[in-house]
């Protein structure tokens, strides 16, 4: 009887799995990011060309694809077009086909599927792969370390250009065993970092950044700067904004396009500036951001961020928040930052509110609302929340719309604490004595057998 039911059970199980997967795809259980209409309007004037010109290589393609995913209309088509052109310059036919599907003929016959090119590139790359593999095998039999390393490296580069990131990653990691000089190690680490960032595997990025930094005689400032950027990205991704800010601000040289296949200098300014604003206190902000001459060069590239920071420092909150709002649409298109825009903005806003209230014993809520460009009830709600989280020591007089600073009465707080501690001590000691007696006389509840 058992055997007859078994196949039915099996089929049923498989069916449910299939249904689940299909439903999952239909309802889009894969993460999608949608923009709301307001921001889309603002982005109609988004200058795609200038934005994307600061990137090269793979990150350009990824960013364009990401933007196309988020937006609709002209900008989407434009992004896809640029992406298509860029991908034709490379070797990644898979991506080309994908982009064509997304365009779906919207760009007209000039951009129709160029199957010839696809087949040509594929053939060429297959030949190249075979050649590389043959060479590598040859080197392995000869056991020449340097050649094996270069073989693996070339293989890694090949896979990277083809867009097969996992294989690229594996190949680069394999070169590790054959690295002899610190230069080799650095280049290996940089390759791995680049591939991992694209894969989204930030754990590996941080491991390899550490490895690279620990290599003796790492002197080249560009390399150091690149490593800092990578570390900053890792920290940003894990929402450790303070660490991210420190890393980005620690960059000692002008990268000026040296790392543009991962990150652009504007990005460094943006990420560093915003994270610093959200997490540093006033002294750190002044010391590390405003007086940081190196970082100032980066800030020149994104003047809004520079204005933003100086406004915050000078307590011109309305204009500061205004700049933030104007930057928001652009930031939500950024590959690394879009998830963090909301938390960063909230933190900056809270800091602004707290900073506004700290010097005063009483604050008129209407004036404060005007300074922050919000309504009084909204402001009252925000402040109530901050008070309950114990970030502001104050009380709100809702009738007269005034905020009064309130300093806890240390003396009565101490008395209350003392009485509570005394009671807790008594309870604990009595419980202990009772338990000691129970254990002494072995009054332990045993299972009834």
């Amino acid at each position, binding site marked *: 009887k058992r055997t007859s039911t078994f196949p039915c059970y099996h089929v049923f199980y498989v069916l449910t799995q299939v249904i689940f997967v299909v439903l999952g795809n239909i309802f889009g259980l894969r993460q999608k990011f949608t923009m709301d209409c307001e921001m889309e309007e603002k982005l109609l004037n988004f200058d795609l060309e200038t934005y994307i010109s600061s990137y090269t290589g793979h990150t350009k393609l990824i960013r364009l694809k990401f933007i196309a995913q988020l937006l609709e209309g002209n900008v989407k088509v434009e992004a896809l077009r640029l992406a298509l052109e860029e991908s034709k310059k490379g070797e990644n036919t898979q991506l080309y086909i994908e982009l064509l599907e997304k365009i779906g003929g919207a760009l007209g016959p000039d951009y129709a599927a160029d199957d010839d090119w696809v087949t040509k590139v594929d053939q060429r790359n297959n030949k190249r792969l075979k050649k590389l593999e043959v060479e590598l095998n040859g080197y392995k039999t000869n056991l020449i370390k340097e050649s094996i390393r270069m073989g693996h490296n070339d293989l890694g580069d090949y896979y990277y250009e083809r867009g097969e990131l996992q294989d690229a990653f594996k190949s680069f990691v394999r070169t590790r065993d054959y690295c002899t000089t610190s230069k080799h190690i650095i280049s290996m680490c940089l390759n791995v970092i680049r591939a991992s960032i694209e894969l989204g595997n930030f754990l590996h990025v941080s491991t390899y950044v550490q490895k690279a930094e620990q290599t003796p005689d790492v002197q080249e400032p560009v390399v150091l700067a690149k490593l800092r950027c990578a570390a900053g990205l890792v920290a940003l991704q894990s929402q450790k904004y303070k660490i991210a800010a420190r890393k980005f601000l620690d960059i000692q040289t002008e990268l000026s396009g040296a790392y543009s296949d991962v990150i652009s200098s504007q990005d460094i300014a943006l990420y560093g500036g915003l994270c610093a604003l959200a997490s540093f206190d006033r002294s750190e902000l002044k010391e590390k951001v405003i007086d940081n001459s190196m970082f100032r060069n980066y800030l020149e590239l994104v003047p809004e961020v520079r204005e933003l920071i100086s406004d915050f420092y000078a307590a011109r909150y309305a204009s500061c928040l205004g700049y933030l709002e104007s930057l928001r649409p652009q930031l939500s298109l950024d590959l690394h930052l879009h998830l963090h825009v909301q938390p960063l903005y909230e933190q900056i806003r809270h800091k602004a509110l707290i900073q506004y209230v700290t010097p005063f014993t009483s604050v008129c809520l209407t004036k404060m609302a005007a300074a922050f460009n919000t309504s009084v009830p909204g402001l009252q709600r925000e402040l109530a929340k901050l008070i*309950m989280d114990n970030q502001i020591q104050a009380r709100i007089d809702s009738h007269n719309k005034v905020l009064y600073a309130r300093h806890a009465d240390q*003396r009565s707080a101490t008395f209350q604490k003392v*009485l509570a501690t005394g009671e807790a001590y008594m309870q604990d000691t009595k419980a202990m004595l009772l338990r000691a007696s129970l254990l002494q006389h072995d009054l332990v509840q045993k299972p009834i057998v």
Partner: protein
Amino acid sequence: MISIDSGRWGGACSAFLEALHESEGSQPHPQHCQQRLRLQARSQMEQTEALGATIRALSGDAPEKLHQLNTQLHASSDVLKRNVETLPELLLNLDPSACSLGWIHLLTAVGCEDPPAGGVDSFIRSVSRLVASCNQDQMLLEPCMFTRLCRRAKEVCLHTNQAARMTAPLLGGVMKMQPSPRHLTSLHQDYLQVCLIAKMYKAGLEVLNKDIYEADPEKTGIVPRDFLLYCYYGGMIYIGLKQWSKALELFLHAISAPTVALSAITVEAFKKYSVVALIHHGRVPPFPKYTSSVVQRHLKLCAQPYTELETAYITRKMDVLKAAVEKHSAAFVKDKNLGLVKQCLNSLCKRNIQQLTQTYLTLSLEDIASEVGLVSSQDVEMQLLRMIDAKEIHASINQKDGMVSFSEDPEEYNSAAMLARMDKEVQNMMQIAQKVAQVDNQVSCSHAYVTKMMMKDRQGNFVEQEYFEDMGTTARNLFGL
């Protein structure tokens, strides 16, 4: 049988034999039966009389005599059971304070019947009389029997819905059984149960107010179940009196009692503990680290609705909590905790209002209503009035504007009353610290501890058993144990 009146026996036997001879060969049945019954009754009477005489003779202060009496009474327990109807009479002839042991045995036999021989009323009255005037030394020879007797009387009372009648006797029983006011007896939990059923919560305080530190099964015959039940019923009494922190203390004792197996009492205690903790503290504190692992692992699984209640309460939103209560109301009704859970709802409302006092100086009634989750400003006003009366918050309501202004706690901690209170607390703490030092001393001088310490050799390692034997004897010689 030392002091049996042989004359009486002989007379009975000869009378019996005479009757047999007389009736040999003749028919009269009823006469036979009558005579037999009469003889039976007489023999019963005589047996009990004999026993009564024994009791009277052996009762006294001499411990060997009492032991003898005890063994004899145990041996003749089936005699007692057979002659149960005559026992109430016998009891009337014996003095409870002098012959307590005898009374205990006799009453146990009386109580074995259902309903007790001689009627419920007289049984209860006899038990009360015994408890009131019994001799403590005699009673302590048979603590388990005494406990069982009191329990039987309690059962009988509860059956006939006369719970209040047993409070005084049980209290007396507790007092008599305790070797010292610090000891826990098995009657504690019976007394508390009766107080609960009779709804005489203040009476329960008589026993609960005295702290217990000792639980000695040799002296009082208690079992672990008694301790758990004591904590459980005690906690329920404190709930009835709304003294939340003391209730929490007792429930925590029940939960953290040393145990190897999970008991249903512990589960019920935990359920009430979590609800009371929500009312008093706003959260359920984690188990102390000395709670046994069995309890820690399994307790929360047995009380699923209550953990959900806790998660709902922590969100501090009235509607979430109400939804959770609705969802599990069947479970709460089954555990008879629905009233407690409703108090929990109320406490969330109060807690939210108290949080508002920390944030606002003045607030309108409508705003309070929307923040806290109440429906109308009249409800808010009523709630605030109740809280102000109970001194849970300090505020004043301006009805013209519909505004409430919150003020600080006016307690300045600088009055004489406060000073006296602090002083008393310090004294209590010193006393209890002394007690702890005493217990520590006791343990350090005890045989078991010393031998275990001797087992560690100079390097601090625990040595083998053979070596220990030699050391043990040396230790014993040294310390004269």
